[in-house]
């Protein structure tokens, strides 16, 4: 990743992508109700960084998650470096 790209990622605010616990649970229930299958990912940054570096690491991770899975798949961050992430898939009856 180019350094200019990294700097522009680090300059962004990613708070809008984070869900509260209630929203996260509601999201799962809505998947059940609309018969969507989904993955729940539990992600941990396991380094012991300084706070400043942790914030940078989180920004980079959030950016990559959004880039990979799209903005609709929002994130529930339980504590620093711990993410729970619901990735919505197809409706159950559409699965192979």
């Amino acid at each position: 990743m180019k350094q200019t790209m990294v700097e522009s990622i680090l300059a962004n605010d990613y708070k809008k992508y984070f869900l509260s616990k209630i929203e996260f649970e509601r999201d799962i229930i809505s998947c059940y109700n609309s018969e969507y299958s989904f993955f729940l990912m539990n992600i941990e940054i396991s380094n012991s960084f300084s706070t400043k570096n942790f914030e940078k690491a989180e920004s980079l991770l959030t950016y990559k998650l959004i880039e990979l899975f799209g903005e609709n798949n929002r994130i529930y961050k339980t504590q620093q470096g711990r993410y729970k992430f619901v990735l919505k898939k197809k409706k159950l009856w559409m699965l192979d």
Partner: protein
Amino acid sequence: MDVRLELNNLINFFKVPVRAKDGYIFINLKIGLVFSGLKESIEKLVLRSRLALLYAKENNFSVYHKNMYKRYYVDLKIEELLYEAYAQNEFEPFFQAYVNTDTQEFIGAEVLMRWIKSDEKIIPPNMFIPILEKNKFIIEVELKFIRKIFDIYKSWQNTYSKNIPLSINVSAVQLSNDKFISEIEKIAKEFEIEKGVLTFEITESYVIDNIEEAAKTLNKLKELGFNISLDDFGTGYATLTHLKSLPIDVLKIDMTFIKSILTDKKSEIIVKHIIDMAHKMDLKTICEGVETEEQYIKLKELGSDIIQGFYFAKPIPKKEFEEIYIY
């Protein structure tokens, strides 16, 4: 989209340090994944994802499997036994000698922790060290173990007038413990450990993940008179900059290179480069995992300073070690 593949790619992406304006950012990710086909309760789903995360080993990634529940309960049982083992002093040192490559003379030993239960059954470290690390009880266990080693070292010195250089592994959890340095200072004073004979072995991954903290901790250990050995060298991304900025005395070349040194030319080239680089930086090298004469000859040819492995010596209990190397 194959989610497993995408997540593995994500982990791999961050394995390469990201360069920012004011330095590199190293991100070590662990991911546990659970698929919900059925309407499970949210609590159950989250617990499953946590179990998958807890047991994420291969490439730091795993998908939940029902066996993880069983393993979790086994681990809980082992954890309980570990507290008992600590109280009963069941963690014993085993000593694996290492030799001068040129002369094959004994020059010291690595001390390895073994759990010997009351029924004499030996529990291998891979069964209990990860559990100790996870619940951080390793801090207490290691400190008690280090005290035991210092005591043994001193008793050999006092009784047999022998100063046997010993190297002791220290976990990343321990090195991140705020009280580690003061505890070591206290124990070293108590046993009047002289400077330059005992070595702490630290892993390359600890250094990479915590470069600033590592520099401070290792410098303090050096000030107290301990040597520093960088274990498993060559498996991570430790750079020349890391080596230059840290007070390291010895590079311990990872045994995966040694295992394949006769069959894989690339391994030979890597080992040769590490040895040459180490010598240029006034560092010693230890090649561990040497099992055959052919490997030994090759490593001698490449200029390794010290050799460790089953070809010369296996890890053995204190009594046996004393009979061979001390009396």
